[in-house]
């Protein structure tokens, strides 16, 4: 008997995806397809809430974790929190896309369909506890991403972005599958719970280590960590900007979900192997991402490199704790905290970049000078999101940084302290380019080429206003009441005790 309550979010989201496609078919105004999609996302949140709060509800039985299909699909606290992150991310991306797509002739209904299908992949991934389900979920996140990146068919940069993303994504997936086949070959199982109990004699085999290495490399592509990051800025720049927003949050979160779940649940006994690898990837990502970001003149490319650096920050506590052999649960909670806050603030940052870009028709930073003169509201939002990414209180980003630093320092050891120092230096470097954007928007003189009067008269489209409003409020609220997100993260890290590790 299948526990339908546990997979109700997936069922509702899957039906929503199909409903969007049918709506697109029967309506003239493609806007309705997006409305159906958003309604479906709200409906998806309901079973997520009832699953999380099942104990307190009358008539609801069964507590988390709910184990389905012999342990290959598990709905636990961690899964519920990450499913909510995916639903939220795709909701904001959808709002951003509505305004963007209507500004030009794009295929709309199909766009919403693909975006929601990718979110479904993320939702499935969050619960996957075996390699087969996880990889197929990852496929569903990646496939629509490749297609959406090429949505601006008339633009060569978009074509290039799609092709580049496709080839690199497929290479990453091939590596991942190669690794899984090696691990499966030597252990005879691909279920995470059984892999975690692999006897030491098998763990010592070279094929096991090689398989693990390939699996790590495959996910490194997905989260765009150094040394597999080069595609990121090109793809974000060439793809339609709302797609960039989705890829930088949804697709990246999917990569992290895969990486954290696999490392944490399938390979906890070899954390001495993958820990140093993640530690190194974190340090390289922060440093390379930040130092290249300083030189960027295009805001979307800047966000691309910034997202590489942020991936480093997200990895830092987890990598350090694993490398030092310390308690993984705190580090896991810190990484999830950072991931959730990053999702909110990066979506907001992309949102405001799209709002400004649709007015100016350019993403060059030089043209953003003096934005405050023609739109104080947008300039303030630029300030809010970019300073949050930099980690300035009272915006949410500071708490992400705090959680990251306290977790890495709690690890102690040379691994923890060294990465904390590198992260601190990188935070300073990041401050340079984030504040450069804010300074340009507020204090620089308006260039002569910009017609202030014309820009002042333009409104931000209502869906865009809603997206910016939600993310801005969240960035402030989470910054002032950080307990909300750390509770979520602690809640999600209970997966350890649940899995009996």
């Amino acid at each position, binding site marked *: 008997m299948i526990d339908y309550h546990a997979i109700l979010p997936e069922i509702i989201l899957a039906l929503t995806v199909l409903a969007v496609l049918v709506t697109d078919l029967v309506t003239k105004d493609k806007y309705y397809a997006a409305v159906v999609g958003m309604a479906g996302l709200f409906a998806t949140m309901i079973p997520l809430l009832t699953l999380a709060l099942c104990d307190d509800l009358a008539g609801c039985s069964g507590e988390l974790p709910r184990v389905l299909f012999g342990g290959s699909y598990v709905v636990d606290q961690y899964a519920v929190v990450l499913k909510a992150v995916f639903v939220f991310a795709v909701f904001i991306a959808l709002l951003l896309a509505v305004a963007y797509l209507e500004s030009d002739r794009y295929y709309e209904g199909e766009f919403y369909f693909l975006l929601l299908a990718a979110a479904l992949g993320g939702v499935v991934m969050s619960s996957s506890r075996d390699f087969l389900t996880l990889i197929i979920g990852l496929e569903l996140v990646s496939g629509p991403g490749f*297609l959406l990146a090429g949505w601006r068919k008339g633009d060569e940069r978009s074509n290039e972005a*799609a092709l580049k993303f496709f080839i690199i994504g497929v290479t990453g997936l091939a590596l991942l599958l190669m690794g899984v086949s090696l691990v499966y070959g030597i252990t005879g199982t691909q279920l995470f719970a059984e892999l975690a109990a692999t006897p030491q004699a098998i763990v010592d*085999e070279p094929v096991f280590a090689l398989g693990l290495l390939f699996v790590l490399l495959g996910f490194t592509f997905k989260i765009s960590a150094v040394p597999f990051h080069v595609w990121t800025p090109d793809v974000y720049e060439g793809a339609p900007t709302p797609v960039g927003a989705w890829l930088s949050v949804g697709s990246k979160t999917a990569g992290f979900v895969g990486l954290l779940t696999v490392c944490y649940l399938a390979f906890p006994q070899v954390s001495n192997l993958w820990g140093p690898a993640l530690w190194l990837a974190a340090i390289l990502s922060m440093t390379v991402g930040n130092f290249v970001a300083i030189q960027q003149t295009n805001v979307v490319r800047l966000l691309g490199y910034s997202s590489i650096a942020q991936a480093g920050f997200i990895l830092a506590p987890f990598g350090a704790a694993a490398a030092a052999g310390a308690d993984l649960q705190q580090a896991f909670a810190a990484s999830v905290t950072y991931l959730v806050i990053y999702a909110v603030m990066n979506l907001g940052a992309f949102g405001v970049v799209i709002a400004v870009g649709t007015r100016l028709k350019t993403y060059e930073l030089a043209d953003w000078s003096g934005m405050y003169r023609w739109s104080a509201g947008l300039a303030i939002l630029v300030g809010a999101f970019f300073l949050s990414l930099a980690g300035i209180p009272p915006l949410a980003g500071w708490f992400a940084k705090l959680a990251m630093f306290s977790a890495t320092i709690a690890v102690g050891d040379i691994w923890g302290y060294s990465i904390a120092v590198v992260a601190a230096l990188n935070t300073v470097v990041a401050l340079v380019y984030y504040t450069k954007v804010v300074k340009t928007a507020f204090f620089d003189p308006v260039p002569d080429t910009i017609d202030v009067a014309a820009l002042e008269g333009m409104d931000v489209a209502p869906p865009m206003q809603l997206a910016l409003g939600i993310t801005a409020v969240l960035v402030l609220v989470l910054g002032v009441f950080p307990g909300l997100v750390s509770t979520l993260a602690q809640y999600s890290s209970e997966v350890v005790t649940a899995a009996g590790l």
Partner: protein
Amino acid sequence: MTIGDWLTESANWAFLFLAIPTFVASVMVVSSRNVVRAVLYLVIALGGSAALFLMLGAEFVGWTVVLVYIGAVIILFLIGIMITRAPLTKSVDLSHPISAKAPAALLSVLLFGVVAWAVVESFGLETIPLPEEATRTGEIGLSIFTSWVIPFEVVSFVLLAALIGGIVLARKDEPAEVP
């Protein structure tokens, strides 16, 4: 077990008989100058791998390779080449200089070396008995609709997304303005 013992078993001769042509055909796929020939070599390579799966007792996988890859994908390749009138021979634009090919070749050889070393180191020449129940087609069919029903359904969404997205990207329409 030594190489000499290994050669005394008739199954291993059957393996070599299948594996060597498969290997040669695979090399020809990537080195052939003519696209249609490359596709035909691919038929041999895929046929060989299907036969290897059959030898392992994986009849479902073996026949799936025959039906899906040789039956459908290869035909699709040939039709695709036909209707797009793609150039059949070497394209100058896509050829890399030797300076780009050499590191790629080196990396490939290194990768092969590492994987081969690890596999030999871990498995050696030992004989691994075939589990009886794991390979029957009927049981694979049952497990797809019981324990693997979620990945199975998700795959259908992957295919649907690829179909819809592919149609949009392949459709011909006037170039959109660059925002």
